[in-house]
C-alpha cells in the first residue's frame, strides 16, 4: 500500500498543489499577487524535485491501467521542470487580472497533472480522460487574458478545434477497440501489428493520432496555433508552446509504437503531414511581424521535424524525439523568457521591438541569440543536436530524401530566425528606449538556461543514453 503511494507521489503532490492553489482562489480580501506567485513558485519547485526523485520508479497501478517506467518518469520530470520554469517567468504577470492570478496557477497545475497522468496511461480510456484534463485547463487559460479584443476569439477557436480533435480521437479509438477487442495498450500491442494491414486498424490509428496532432499543431490541426499564440497571455502561451507540446510528443511516441512499424499507409500519412507541416510553417513564418506569431508558425514546422523522428519507428528515432522534446522545451522557455521580460505591460512583442536589445540588456540578447539559433538548429545549441539525432535516425531507416527536404526547410527557417537576431544585434535601439533592468533571480535563470542549452548541444551522450533506455521501455510495454 505505502509502496503504491510512493509510486504515485508526483501525481499526488501536484494534486495537493492544485488543492492549495484552489484554497488561494477562494481566499477573501484584496488580491495578493506576490503571495500567489511565491506559493506557486515554491510548490512547483518542490514538485520538480519530486519528479526528479521519482525517475527510476517502476510498476503498475490501478489494475494495470497506469504504468511507471523510465519513459513516463523521464517525461514527468520534464513536465515538472517545465511547469517550474513557466512559473519562474510569471513574476511579472501583467497579462492577467490580479484577482485571477490564483486561477492562472491552478489551471497550469491541473493541466500539468493531466499531462503527467497522460504519459503514464497505458489504457485508452484513461489516456483520453487525462488528455481532456490537460486540454480543458488550457481552454480556460487562453481567454483569461485581460482587456484585449481578440482573446475570446482565440479561446473559442482553440476550444472548437480541440473539441473536434477529441471527437475524432474517440471515434478512432472505437475502431481500434473494434479490431483489437481491448483498451489496454499492452494487449493492443500484441494484436495490432497483425491487423495493421486491414483498413479499419489504419483508419482507427490515424483518427486517434488526430487528437495528438491537435496538441502538437501538426498540419491539418494547426489553425489554432497562430491565433492562440497571439491572443493568449504571454505566460499562458509559454506553457502551451512548451509543456503541452512535450506531452503531445510523449503520447505520440506511445501510440505510434503500438503499430509495430510496418504499415505503409500510416507511414505515408505521417510523411505527407511532416512535409506539408514543415513547408507551410516555415514559409508563412517568414512574413510574420509579431514574435509570438512567428514562434507559432515555427512550432508548426517543428511538429514536422518531430514526425520525422517518429516515423523512423526505431528505438533511436524515439530516443531522438525524447531528446528533441527536452531541447525544444528549454529553447522555447528561453525565447519566452526574453519576450516576457521585454513586454512591459504584458502586451505582445513585435520583432522590431527587439531593436538594440544588445545595448539595452546584453544578457537577454545572448539568451535570445542562443534560443533562436537553437530553434533554427545551429550548433553548439541543444536544437542542433536534437535535429541531428532525428535526421540520423531517419537516414538509418532509408528516408534520405525526406531528410534532404527537411534540411532545405531548416535553411528556409534560418532566414526568419536570423531576422530576429539581426533586430537584436544590428538595429540601433529605438529613440527613448531605456536599459531593461534584470532582477537577480531572473539573471540566475538566464545563466541556467544558457548553460543547459549549451550542455544539451555539447554533451548529449548521458541524456541520450537515458532516452534510449526509455525508448526501449516504450517498445516493451508489456
Amino acid at each position, binding site marked *: 500500500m505505502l509502496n503504491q503511494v510512493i509510486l504515485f507521489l508526483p501525481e499526488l503532490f501536484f494534486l495537493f498543489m492544485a488543492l492549495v492553489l*484552489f484554497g488561494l*482562489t477562494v481566499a477573501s480580501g484584496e488580491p495578493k499577487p506576490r503571495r500567489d506567485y511565491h506559493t506557486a513558485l515554491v510548490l512547483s519547485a518542490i514538485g520538480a524535485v519530486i519528479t526528479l526523485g521519482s525517475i527510476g520508479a517502476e510498476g503498475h*497501478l*490501478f*489494475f494495470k*491501467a*497506469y504504468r511507471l517506467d523510465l519513459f513516463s518518469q523521464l517525461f514527468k520530470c520534464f513536465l515538472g521542470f517545465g511547469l517550474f520554469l513557466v512559473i519562474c517567468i510569471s513574476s511579472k504577470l501583467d497579462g492577467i*487580472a490580479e484577482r*485571477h492570478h490564483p*486561477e492562472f496557477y*491552478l*489551471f497550469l497545475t*491541473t493541466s500539468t497533472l493531466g499531462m503527467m*497522468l497522460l504519459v503514464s496511461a497505458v489504457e485508452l*480510456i*484513461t489516456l483520453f*480522460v*487525462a488528455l*481532456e*484534463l490537460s486540454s*480543458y*485547463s488550457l*481552454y*480556460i487559460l487562453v*481567454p*483569461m487574458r485581460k*482587456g484585449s479584443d481578440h482573446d475570446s476569439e482565440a*479561446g473559442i477557436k482553440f476550444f472548437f478545434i480541440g473539441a473536434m480533435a477529441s471527437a475524432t480521437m474517440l471515434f478512432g479509438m472505437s475502431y481500434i477497440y*473494434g*479490431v483489437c*477487442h481491448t483498451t489496454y495498450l499492452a494487449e493492443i500491442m500484441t494484436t495490432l501489428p497483425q491487423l495493421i494491414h*486491414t*483498413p*479499419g*486498424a489504419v*483508419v482507427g490509428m490515424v483518427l486517434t493520432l488526430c487528437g495528438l496532432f491537435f496538441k502538437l499543431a501538426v498540419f491539418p490541426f494547426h489553425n489554432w496555433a497562430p491565433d492562440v499564440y497571439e491572443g493568449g497571455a504571454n505566460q499562458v502561451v509559454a506553457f502551451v508552446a512548451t509543456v503541452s507540446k512535450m506531452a503531445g510528443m510523449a503520447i505520440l511516441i506511445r501510440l505510434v509504437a503500438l503499430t509495430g512499424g510496418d504499415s505503409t499507409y500510416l507511414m505515408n500519412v505521417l510523411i505527407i503531414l511532416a512535409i506539408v507541416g514543415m513547408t507551410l510553417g516555415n514559409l508563412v513564418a517568414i512574413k510574420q511581424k509579431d514574435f509570438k506569431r512567428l514562434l507559432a508558425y515555427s512550432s508548426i514546422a517543428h511538429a514536422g521535424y518531430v514526425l520525422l523522428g517518429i516515423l523512423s519507428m526505431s528505438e533511436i528515432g524515439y530516443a531522438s524525439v525524447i531528446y528533441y522534446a527536452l531541447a525544444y522545451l528549454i529553447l522555447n522557455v528561453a525565447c519566452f523568457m526574453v519576450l516576457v521580460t521585454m513586454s512591459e505591460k504584458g502586451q505582445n512583442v513585435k520583432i522590431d521591438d527587439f531593436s538594440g536589445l544588445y545595448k539595452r540588456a546584453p544578457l537577454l540578447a545572448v539568451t535570445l541569440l542562443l534560443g533562436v539559433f537553437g530553434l533554427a538548429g545551429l550548433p553548439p545549441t541543444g536544437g542542433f543536436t536534437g535535429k541531428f539525432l532525428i535526421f540520423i535516425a531517419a537516414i538509418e531507416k532509408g528516408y534520405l530524401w525526406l531528410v534532404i527536404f527537411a534540411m532545405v526547410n531548416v535553411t528556409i527557417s534560418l532566414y526568419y530566425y536570423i531576422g530576429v537576431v539581426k533586430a537584436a544585434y544590428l538595429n540601433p535601439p529605438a529613440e527613448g528606449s531605456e536599459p531593461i533592468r534584470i532582477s537577480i533571480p531572473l539573471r540566475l535563470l538566464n545563466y541556467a538556461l544558457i548553460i543547459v542549452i549549451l550542455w544539451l548541444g555539447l554533451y548529449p551522450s548521458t541524456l541520450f543514453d537515458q532516452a534510449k533506455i526509455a525508448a526501449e521501455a516504450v517498445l516493451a510495454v508489456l
Partner: protein
Amino acid sequence: MEPLMAVIIPTLPELIKFEWVAQAAFYFIIGVTLAGAVSAVFLRRIIHNILGLIVALFGVAGLFIYLNSEFLALMQILIYVGAICISIVFAIMLSDPMYKEDPRRRLTKVFASVLVSLLILAGFLSMITKTPFEAAAQRSDDWTVTTVGNLLLTRYALVFELISFVLVVAIIGAIVIAGQGRKQRSLK
C-alpha cells in the same frame, strides 16, 4: 369471443415471428434517432434543434435497450436528456435574445459540405466492408447495476476519479470566464 381468441393465441407465434418484431423495433429506433438528428441539424430555430436532439438521444437510449444494456439506456436519458439538454434550454433562456436575421445558407457552401460528407461516408463504408471485424468473445451476462458499480470502483477507479476532477476544473473554469465576461460588460 372465446373461441376466436383460442384460435388466435396459439397461432400468434406463427403469424408474427419474433425476429420480425425485433427487426421492426430496430428499424423504428434507428428511424427515430435519424429523424431527431436530421431535425437537430437542419431546422432553423434553435429550440427546434434541441427538441430534435432530445428525440435523437431517446433513440440512442432505445438502441442501448435493444443491446440489453438497461443501465446505459437509463443513464443516457437521465444525463443527456435530463441534464444536458435542459441546461442548454436554460442557457438559451438566460442569454440575450437574438433578433438578428439568420444568415442565409450559401449554395456553394451547402454543395461543398454535402460533397465532403458524401466522400467521407463513401470512405468509411468501403473501409467497414473491407475490414474483417471479428465478434469479440462475450465477457459476461451479468450487467446489473451492482456489477457496473463494482467495475467502476475497481477496474475503472482511476478514470472514474479523473472524470470528476475534469468536471471540477470545467466548473471552476466556467465560473472564472463567466465572471470575467460580466465584469467587462459592467465596465462598458
